[in-house]
């Protein structure tokens, strides 16, 4: 059965790229959001298994959104996909509850590998 995916990124092109890539890897995109606020609303409705999360977004940034999603579902698996390339940001995202961090720019192979690592033995 396909895993349900929610994509959160303020770039339409990035959302489209993630959708194209992961739809070919047994994932069904059930929701997309361009900011954290919308993501929290859609998360409750669509109950995804996996979320890809940008960090720099309008209205509610990615770290705040991760905290909100983890309150709703502490077991949610979150891959941060961000241009913020410093180590401390990656560490902070992991502390907030993300399980993986992929730095932009990324290739389709990078994304697939990061998702496979995130899912582990699933």
């Amino acid at each position: 059965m396909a895993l349900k995916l929610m994509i959160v990124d303020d770039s339409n092109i990035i959302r489209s790229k993630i959708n194209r890539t992961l739809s070919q890897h047994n994932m069904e995109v059930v929701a997309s959001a361009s900011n954290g606020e919308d993501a929290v609303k859609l998360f409750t409705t669509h109950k995804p298994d996996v979320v890809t999360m940008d960090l720099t977004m309008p209205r509610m940034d990615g770290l705040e959104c991760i905290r909100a999603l983890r309150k709703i579902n502490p077991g949610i698996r979150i891959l941060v996909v961000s241009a913020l390339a410093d180590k401390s940001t990656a560490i902070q995202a992991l502390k907030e509850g993300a399980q993986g961090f992929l730095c932009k720019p990324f290739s389709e192979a990078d994304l697939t590998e990061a998702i496979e690592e995130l899912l582990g033995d699933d």
Partner: protein
Amino acid sequence: MDEQQLRVFIDIVSQYFEKQTGKAPDVGSPYLGDASSLPIYDFTGVIGISGERQGCVYVTAHRDLLRQLLLHVGESDVSDNNLSDLVGEVANTISGNARRYFGPDFMISVPVVVSGNARAIQVPRSVKAYILPLRWHKFEAALVVSLQ
């Protein structure tokens, strides 16, 4: 900004194109520009910088360059909306990647994108703006870095 910091931006923009398209851009000689005569092409993505450094980083590009870049990243929709989105994302990625060198106090805004004659772009007048001319295939763009 010193030469080493300028080199950071040259490396990042080269790596961006290399990673996304397999072909790095030709980077022309950087030069200092006056706030009143900065390069502006069809679409411009601006990132405000705050924290320890203040100013802005912007990417400005010809429509045809962005169209080709979109196709290279697998996006067939080359509408103006996606060209705007792309130039903002390039500016965001370059600025965000610069934190690897400048650290987390190099705080970046969400991109602001303007199209056409972008008179609204304002760089700090008291700070020098470094212009990195870019040519990718036969199309022109520029990365402008103005940091206190």
